[in-house]
Structures are given as structure tokens and as C-alpha cells.
């Protein structure tokens, strides 16, 4: 088996990861971006978010497999390991604001999901 790998230099800024419909509504998938595991989520408003796939509590690459829901209207994903909730918009843990997972710029262009640079927290 040979893997076709996206190469960051080829696309300059943005990495194509999949078509939007490959990301389940109110669900997530994992993508490999620049050698890192990134979780791509689609919320109920069809907004797309890119977070590190690694749950900082479990230290395992699993976040994309968590359940997506809302808390007080804010979309979040619950880690499938021990259920800690992370806000999709900025990766902050809703139960412990000191904990945050990395997020990436992400956009949808002509039905294709593209991941850009890792964001630096404000």
C-alpha cells in the first residue's frame, strides 16, 4: 500500500483534505495535515472547524471520534475518551478554560475542505 500524502509546500498555504460531504453533519473526521493528526468538524450551521485530533487529557489521537453537540448554543465536541468538552471555534475546554487544543485555519472552497496554518491563540 502506498499513501498519497498532501505536501504543504505544494499548496503554499492551504491543504485540501476532503470534500465537505465526507465530514458528517454534526460529526468529525481525522485528517493528516503536515504530518499532524487534525480533526475536522462540521457543526449544525455547516461551519467547519479544524482542531488537533489529540485529546490533551487522554493524550491520544481521538477527538474526531467524539460526539458533537451544543452547550448553551455553543458547538463543542466531547472527547470520546473521558468526555471533556472542547469548543469547536477555538479549542478551549469548556470545563477548564486553561486547557486548549490547537486549532487551524480552515475553509470550504467549491465543496472542498482546506486546512491552512495553525492558529496562535489570541
Amino acid at each position, binding site marked *: 500500500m502506498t499513501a498519497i500524502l498532501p505536501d504543504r509546500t505544494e499548496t503554499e498555504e492551504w491543504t485540501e483534505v476532503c470534500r465537505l460531504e465526507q465530514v*458528517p453533519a454534526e460529526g468529525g473526521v481525522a485528517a*493528516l495535515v503536515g504530518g499532524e493528526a487534525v480533526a475536522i468538524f462540521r457543526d449544525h450551521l455547516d461551519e467547519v472547524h479544524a482542531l488537533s485530533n489529540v485529546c490533551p487529557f487522554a493524550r491520544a489521537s481521538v477527538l474526531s471520534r467524539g460526539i458533537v453537540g451544543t452547550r448553551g448554543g455553543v458547538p463543542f465536541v466531547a472527547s470520546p475518551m473521558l468526555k471533556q468538552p472542547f469548543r469547536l471555534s477555538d479549542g478551549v475546554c469548556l470545563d477548564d478554560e486553561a486547557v486548549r487544543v490547537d486549532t487551524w485555519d480552515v475553509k470550504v472552497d467549491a465543496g472542498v475542505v482546506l486546512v491552512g496554518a495553525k492558529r496562535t491563540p489570541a
Partner: protein
Amino acid sequence: MSQRERLVVVGHGMVGHRLVQAAIERGLTERYDVVVLGEEPRAAYDRVALTSYFSATCAEELSLLPGGSYDHDAVELRLSTEVVAIDRDARTVTTRDKVCGTETTVAYDQLVLATGAAPFVPPVPGREHEGVFVYRTIEDLDAIREASHTATSGIVIGGGLLGLEAANALVQLGLQTHVVEMAPRLMPVQLDQAGGSTLVRHIEKLGVSVHTGVMTEAITADEAGRVNGLALKDAAPVEAQVVVFSAGIRPRDLLARECGLEVADRGGVLVDDQCHSSDERIWAIGECAAPAGRMYGLVAPGYDMAEVVVDALLDGPGRFTGADMSTKLKLLGVDVASFGDAFATTEGSLELVYSDAVAGVYKKLVVTEDGSRLLGGILVGDAAAYGLLRPMVSSGIPLPENPEELILPASRGGSTGSGVAALPDEAQICSCNNVSKGDIVHAVEHDGCEDVASVKKCTNAGTTCGSCVTSVKAIIEDHFAKTGREVNRALCEHFAVSRSELFEIVAIHGYRTFADVLEAHGTGRGCDICKPTVASILASQFNEHVLEGRHRGLQDTNDAFLANIQKNGTYSVVPRIPGGEVTPEGLIVIGEVARDFGLYTKITGGQRIDMFGARLEDLPLIWGRLVDAGFESGHAYGKSLRTVKSCVGSEWCRYGVQESVSMAIRLELRYRGLRSPHKLKGGVSGCARECAEARGKDFGVIATDKGWNLYVGGNGGATPAHAQLLAGDLDDETLVRYLDRFLMYYVRTADRLQRTAPWIDSLDGGLDRVKAVVVDDVLGLGSELEREMDRHVASYFDEWKATLEDPEKLSRFVSFVNAPGVPDPNISFTTERDQIRPVNHDEPVVLGSTIPVGGPR
């Protein structure tokens, strides 16, 4: 520091045990070494529940001190040790070992007599014959059971409370049973003539012959000296091979008499209100004691005496001032209660009577002349009001305008429930454990108790005879209502209803998707609590594939990939091995799969094999191999049936009386795939030795020579619970029917993540309620529950096989959406004991420019 003293307790019965417990709890053991001398071969057990010994699997089940010793350095318990003399001058007691006969002396500084009472056997000619018994100890019951094997009928002499208990036991042993009572009615101490007659009608319906107002002349026997019947005065003789005396009890005060202590006129060690005897170093408590000359044949006053003595030894002010002799019991399935001034002996008191001969209900209230206060009462056939009425007597609160409403059936204007609100804080709610309404409210307010189960734990209320549980529950709810605190049953912020309400909502409206349920009954978009809950409810009712597009995003971690997630993000694989039975070929396949995919292999606690360390993207390949070999999902990942553990049973075992493996397999195949509020486990043992640990399971089936005993509500885990008997000696079909009903009732009404034991506890009426619904079918739901289970069974399919056949479902089993076969670099293993184990990463892993392709194979 002063020298340690020694407290010697004679008798390790219910009350002696309570004394030791109190001594430990209240720190008396800091000053005293405690030596307990008990004549019986086993530690204290629940004599009140003695009759249940016949349905228990072992004597240990009744034990008040499982394990048989106190976990405290200062307390020593010597069993099979009888005290034969007290030397008050030397301050010693002489003991005799019941097994080897050796005598020793034990010195005391303080001596507590807790020797209980002995059954009274009147001097009836023939009472020495073989086949004559009393009813007091486990040994007595063993002997009666032994004799019943060769008997067809039995007689109980005495129609009081204990006599009827004994009659119940004879009925359970399958004997044609007679009760002979000298007084003109049953339970003469508690009931009036009309109440007694109502009780007789109930009991006769159960096949017991009641002879009241007759005198026993002699017990007759055959030439070998074996009992063959009873000769009665002015009545035809009655035939029987077993005779049980239950003609009252006598305090065991011989030791006290012999050493010159004062005894009461009617027996019992005379003690003052601190339970001090006429010797300042000797105390007496329980049934052997007679405070102010009166002995008490119930356990609750004995417990009070035990507390009083411990208090006195700690220089406390405790006093024993008499006891509430109210009783409520279920005799042979009939509710009977008697409380307060049941016979209307108070000057000018009035009686209000409601009686329905057809329904077999008799209720009497005794009220003051002006009708303002309740003095006592009798309830036969329906004692539901007891919990409300009894505290009214002790607290003296005013009666409502129309007191008769308290005993009228609901359809005739009577009210049930409510009423606890009016009770003052001092009202005693649990008489067995002396817990007041105030204690219960305190537990809720300050100790964080939220429900009956936690209040029970915290206060002991309701843990003995259980008759106060309804009141306890009402008090908790009343308190919540008063403080404006709702018993919050909301599932999460998206649904204001409980799981069981949601279950009914789905059943009634026929919703098939989460979106529909949310739109009609919820708010927001759902979360990790309500989504899996609704998914489980939908699966219980419609059994669609959990990975169906519209259900997939709702599934909890493990269900989402039909495997159990592990700490490093890999998964474990558990094929079903029904009843733990597996062929050598099957084992070889599992071995080959594990070897080829490099999986860590372990035998589980559930009699099957778990393979760990499977990468997400490998799951379909692994399952493809297993399904081809005839394996199916074991649902180790689901809140659903896990395993039905079995012993080898009569197929192979020399002790087995039924084929436990066949039954376990039948049950596992029947209930596999059933999505439930929590995981479900079963067990089947081929005989009472219980090698399958069935009583540690949600449902446990244990073979008897007549069929199967069905136990429910067991589990291991953090709060282990022993399953309780639901029904006995069932044939295969009835067993399955009851199980269908039980499981569906649970699936419908339990809370999210509530296993069967806490669910049963949470039901009003607890296990009795489950029995009523499952066995007696009081709700008329039986066939509906069975139909639902049939529908589940008919719709079962292997969800792994179905997944393998559906490319859409399979498309999710990839490591990365843009690199489906590339193993996640965050996962790596080391080796330990020749198998893999996960390496823990402290940092997320970033790949270099080259990527290893394919995982360890």
C-alpha cells in the same frame, strides 16, 4: 492512662450484635476489650427474616456479620461457646465449648446478658416424639426441612405471629399445613375478632387449614416413636408427620436466676431504665431482659436497649422508656398491621371500621372520643396506610376532618400517600431502626442524600422490615417540594424529561430519529448525554443498525466503531462466545487473527477472549476474518447484553442438576444485541454451588432439582450487589417468560446508566414491585413486555456482519480521511511478556518527511 477493662457479652444474637456495633461506633472499645460469647455455631443472623432461609442459597445470606468476625482488634467473638455459670463475686463467667466440651472461665468488669428467648413448649403429652420441632434457629429450620422430605402434612401449634411465619415455612416446603390455635382467632395479641376472621379467609385460600378455639390434648406417634398426628379436645384428630410448636417464647434468664439476680414475675432479668440488673456490673438487653418487669418480643426494643447500655457505659443520659409494639407484616402474602391501642382500651375511645369481605380487607381505626386524635388501629388485607397512620399515633397530631377517609379505598373518597407533610419532626418513621422524620430530613438537607437509596445508607431507615420505605420516599419528595427543589429528572440541558419518560415518548409517537425527538420535545442540538440515550432508546424499540447514517453521530465512543476504545486510541475486539463455550477450531481462528494483526490477547472476566491494540482501519479486516469463521459481535462495546456466564452444569459436572451451559447459551442468544440503559450480564449455574457466580449478575439463574431459581439485580463493580430471588423452581419456558418481562420492564423504566440493582431500589416497593409486575402481572403488561422481547429477538442481526456488507458504513473505518491506510503516528507499542502494549505519549506526535506505511502486522 487508666487500664483497659473487659466487657463480656453473653449471647451473639441480633441484640448482642447491635451492642457490639454500637460499642465500636461510639468508641467504647477505646476503654474496653469486648469478648462476645455465643452459643450458636454461627455469628448473629437476621432472625426476623428466618423464614427466608428456605429461599436463600446459604445461611451466610442471613448473616448480620458476613465473614463471622469483627474487624476490630479490641473485639473477640467466640462461637459455639455457651456460658454455663456466672460467679458474681469473682466476676467471672464459666463457658463450655459446645464442640469439645472444655470449660474455661472468663473474667469481666462489665457483663451484658443478651441471651434472647427460647420457644415455649407447653407440657403436651407426646412432645418428646421424633418429628416435633420449634422455630427459632437456622438449625431448627434445617431439621424441619430434613423431616419434610418424608412428610406430607404438618401442624403448627399456635396461631400467633410466629406461628403463621412457621406455617408459611411449611407451605413453602410443600406440606399440607394446619394451624391450631387455642384462642378463638388468629394473632390474638394483635387482632380483634373481625380482623382475625378476615385473615383466616385469606390464609385458607392458600390451602392452610385453620383450627381456632381448640385445645391440643396429645401428640400421637407410631410404634417407632415418630409423630403421626394430633389429638384435639372436642374435635377430630389431625394427621401430620411434622409438628412445630409456636406457642410463645420465654426469656432465657436461667443464668441470672442461678446467680441470684432479680427476675420479673413473668420471667426475664429485671432491669431498670438503663438496663441495669440488680448487680451493678451486670446488664441485660433484648428478649432476655424485662425492663420494669415487662419483656419485649420484638427486635426494635432490643436494639434500643443495646444503645442505652452503651450510652450508660459512656456515662450518657440514655433511658429505655418502653417501646412501640406496632407490627406490620406480610403473612403468607397477606398484609397485616396492628398498632397503638388496637383494642380500643382507652376510656371513651371510638372505633371506625371499614370492611370488605369480598376483597378480604378489614381496617379499623381507634380514635379519641372527640375524634381528634388517632390512638391505634388494625389493618388486614391492605396495610398501605400503615406508614402514614402509625406516626400519627406516636406524634399525636390532629386527625383530618373525616378520619374515615384514611381507611377508605381510593375509589370511595379515601386518600393515600400525602400526609407525611403534616407529621412533626419527632414522628418516628422507621420503628425498626428508630429513625424520625427529622433524621430523614436532616440526611437530605445536610448529608447530600437525594433518594431513598442514599437515605437508607445514611440513616438505616427502611433497612430491616422495609415497611417504612414508602413513607421515607414521601418525606424526601415532600421536602424537595417544600424547598422548591425539584427532584431534577431532566436528562441534560436539551431535554427536561427523564430517560424513562423519553422512552415512553418515543414509544407513543413512534419517532424514528433523534432529530424528530429533539424537535418535538427538546431544545438546542443535543450533546454527548442525550444523543447516546436517545440512540439507545431507538435501538431498544426498533433495533435499526446503530451505524445507520441518521444514528451514527449519536453513538457513544464504543458503539460508534463497534469496539472498545483503549487508552492510546486503538480498539479491542471481543467476539461473542455464548456461555463461554468455544470449539478448538474457534480458538484457533481467534489465535490466528490475533497473531496476524499483532493483537494483545487476554482471557476476560466474562468467559471470552479480548484482543487489544487494533487500529481503527484494521477493524473491518479483523472482523471479516472472524465473521467468516462464524463469530459475531460480542457487544463488549454496547450498553447491551454482554455475557451470560455459565458453569459446566449437569452436562459434565457430577453435582449438576440442570444443563446450565445449554440454558446460558439459549439466554445469551435470546437477549444478545438488546440495547439497554446500562450493560446487562447474566449467569447460569447448574446447582446451588453456584460456580457461575450467577448472583453477581443482573440476572442469575440457578438450577434446582425442580427447575430454575431466578435472581435479579446483582452486579460486581464498585458497589457490588447480590441478586435477589424473583421466583423459584421455574420450568424453562416460564423462566424465559419472566426474564423477557423483567428485562423489558427494566429497559423501559430505568434511568440512563442505571444498572438493575439501583433501578430495583429506586422503584416504589423495590423487589416486591418487580415481583408484582413480572410474576403476578398486576399491571397486565406481561404479554406486552413479552411481545416486545419477541420483536427484539426476531429483529436481531449481527451488526458487524451488516457493517462489512455496507460500503457506506465501512467508509468511516479509516485512520485519516485524506490518507485512509496511513497508521496514526500517535500510536506506538512496546513489548511486554511477549505481547504488545501501548506506549504513552506526552506530546502529540508530528511526522517527519517520511512516513512509515502500514502498521505492525
